[in-house]
């Protein structure tokens, strides 16, 4: 999503947009403590609802992109992992996102739907940390977003749609925005075909 946000910001053009990138829950904490932000993009409805509950967003957060989960393994899949079931093996070092970050919540949903219990070697503070551990070869596998698989050194294993939760990203203009109109305009822009095309190119569905 970082790359997507950067591409969208560049394409928008009307205003120069600066990104402050962090896990959704960290962003919420920043907004709560009064960070000078105009727009927030979050990775799940829970975080969006938290923001609405805090009364810091203008109107309702708008869903603007969707994603799914996938298994990330080292390039070429040396352990021959074919699906979630293979992650439970004793020879597989698995890392997952911690349950309080959006990716961790989605992972819990996924494992629930699949009826599988997995024991992770580490519950990482962000989905990016999960990806990094796999990229560096410290972990054999991790569960990440499908759009994360384009990274070098990573091979993706698809998870069947029947059990794979649809993840949804939300955007909202903050009440503390320096220019509330411009902030709302960018949120509206995310729903336009131009923005949606960029998201689709990066693997996000709408």
């Amino acid at each position, binding site marked *: 999503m970082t790359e997507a946000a950067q591409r969208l910001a560049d394409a928008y053009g009307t205003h120069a947009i600066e990104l402050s990138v962090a896990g959704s829950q960290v962003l919420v904490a920043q907004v709560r403590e009064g960070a000078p932000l105009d727009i927030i993009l979050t990775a799940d409805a829970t975080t969006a609802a938290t923001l609405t509950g805090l009364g810091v967003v203008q109107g309702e957060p708008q869903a603007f992109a969707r994603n799914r989960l996938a298994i990330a393994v080292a390039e070429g899949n040396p352990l021959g992992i074919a699906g979630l079931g293979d992650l439970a093996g004793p020879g597989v070092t698995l890392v997952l996102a911690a349950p309080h970050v959006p990716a961790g919540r989605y992972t819990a949903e996924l494992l629930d739907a699949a009826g599988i219990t997995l024991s992770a070697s*580490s519950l990482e*503070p962000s989905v990016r940390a999960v990806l990094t551990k796999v990229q560096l070869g410290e972990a054999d596998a991790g569960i990440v977003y499908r759009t994360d698989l384009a990274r070098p050194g990573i091979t993706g294993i698809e998870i069947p749609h029947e059990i794979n939760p649809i993840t949804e990203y939300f955007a909202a203009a903050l009440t503390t925005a320096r220019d509330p109109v411009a902030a709302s305009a960018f949120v509206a822009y995310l729903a336009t075909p131009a923005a949606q095309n960029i998201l689709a190119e990066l693997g996000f569905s709408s």
Partner: protein
Amino acid sequence: MSRVVPIRLAALALVGLALLLVPIAGLLIRVPWSGLGGDLADSGDALRVSAVVSVLATTVAVGLGVPLAWLLARGRFRGRGLLRAAVLLPIVLPPVVSGVALLASLGRTGPVGRFLEVFLGFTLPFTTAGAVVAAAFVALPFVALVAEAGFRSVDRDLEDVAATLGAGPWRRFRRIALPQAVPALAAAVVLGWARALGEFGATVTFAGNLTGRTQTLPLAIFFELERDPEAAFSLSLLLVAISLLVLTAARRTWAR
């Protein structure tokens, strides 16, 4: 009252003191005193991991840091300044950089890490041993720094006398220098332990986060802050209390 400190300096010193104490006071205000017992009871795993990791890390840091300190204090060789800089590097490195460096060397794909996996059959990342290595890495410079200062203050004349009486270098180290440096070494142990106990960035990067295995108190605080901020405040208070206790104990050895 005789004024020995210029008023301008005193004013700045007070501001400095405020900068140090206001956050701690803020923490005390936010601690949920009524739920304190429950929060601490729930963090038994983190407490246990922290105790094990910090004690083992201190043992490693002292076992290796004291000889290094001796080398720095007494060794006469070229590049000693460079060596000292290298030893002290982890003090100024951002902890996450320490973690990345540990991954690059001792991780599964690092040169040493690969050797460990292939020949000894074990890996450090995501293990308690990995957390110990991360904590020892950041604690060792503190031990070496304080111990070196201690060795430097040892009376060289006594060692010279011992030498003329036929005592070899090992005997002079053990019987003359070491006993004199005990207060400094005690301070080194305490500081090293406090640093190991507080270690976060290198640990989460190198050893990961798993309850009961690598999740130490600082990691538990970080993750609780996003799940249950009240519990994070309780755990923070615990670490502040331990640190104060340790510093008070260490001050006695310094004051001697």
